[in-house]
């Protein structure tokens, strides 16, 4: 299992709440900041919308890492939707760590719409870390259909 990967092997899905997270991400794109091309953004109404099961399913399907972007605690558009989001996602991280999949595959980023620069840096950093993780091949040795 090679430790470093071709940059094209790293696939990241970003769930971004459409208030702070998405606008921040969008801003990074507009500024033409250098970003790894290997990610897709899925807008959600709030970080609290992101079912942890989606993250599990994405990892099983071979996605390298998942990022969930939302507003700062205290700054949630829906007042406290991001609280249980943070709690749940961190608990999921514990499970991912226990099973050796690696909690590092989950990035949780809370910010504001104006922080596109920080957003870009976070994604770049995440991408770098993921490139160094070994491929979770064993886990994906799943059922006959997905072979």
């Amino acid at each position: 299992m090679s430790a470093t990967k071709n940059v094209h092997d790293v696939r990241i899905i970003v769930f971004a709440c459409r208030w702070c997270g998405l606008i921040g991400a969008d801003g990074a794109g507009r500024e033409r900041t250098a970003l790894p091309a290997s990610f897709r953004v899925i807008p959600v109404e709030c970080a609290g919308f992101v079912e942890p099961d989606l993250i599990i399913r994405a990892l099983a399907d071979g996605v390298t890492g998942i990022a969930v972007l939302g507003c700062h605690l205290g700054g949630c558009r829906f007042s406290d939707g991001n609280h249980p989001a943070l709690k749940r996602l961190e608990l999921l991280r514990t499970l991912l760590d226990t099973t050796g999949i690696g909690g590092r595959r989950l990035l949780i980023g809370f910010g504001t719409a104006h922080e596109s620069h920080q957003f870009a840096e976070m994604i770049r950093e995440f991408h770098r870390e993921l490139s160094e993780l070994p491929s979770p091949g064993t886990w994906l040795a799943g059922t006959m259909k997905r072979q």
Partner: protein
Amino acid sequence: MLDELKKKAREILKAGDAQGVLGLKRGLFDVIHPHVFTAAEELDSLVTEPKWPLAKTARAILRDRPGDFRLAVAARGCDERAVVELIKRNQIDRERILILGYTCGSEQAKACLCSRPWPEKRVAGDIVEGIDPLADDRVRPYLEGDDRARMERWAEQLRRCIKCYGCRNACPICICVPCKLEDDLWVERGAVPVEMVPFHLIRAFHLSDTCVACGACQEACPAGIPLMTLQLSMREALRKEYNYEAGLEPERTSPILSDFNREPRPGQALPDWIHTMDRKT
């Protein structure tokens, strides 16, 4: 201990506090199986061995009976905690169930990796100390080492899964209809070996804050997969961060369902306004 339990159970039936007592019966030829005792005399054949989780069965019986039927349950600590969680989730009406709690011995606690081998509503038995599952040799290999080592260990076990749904069927908390594990969108249907990660991690995570560590899941697993161990680090995280353990506080909703004001944790600040983006490492 058994005599005290029988005595209490007889009293309950005689007083009409419950119309049935769910427990284990030693029948003819020494066979043991669950039974709903409806007459005080019947309780002579009540036994407490072997361990036989009954919380889920209690829920099923109550659902099948009219609203005036009350059920007492001869319950170990784990069963009581499961009942507490079911009550919290409106699966059992607290007015219709009575716990006749009895303790487990240290042999049983060791066998079950149990840290709390006693019920709160105890009517029989003496409390013995439990063990710390996280320090046990049966659990440690699955929680230590690097990512790769842990992943290998878990994959080696989970690939044995034959999709019997026993873990889900036996778990007192797994009562959802429909169950996500049966949804083809989340877990591929009709195939064995099952997709390890979606089936087992979705189930484990759904139970993250409700698992009472009763062990019914792994006892029901034909392949002997250490399923309870999958839950232990999440239980520990909840204990450390929120001082929360499922099944102990009937009035307290799971902390991860609410905000940090109501269920705070140490080191978690709640500013109104922040200068920079926060990466939660």
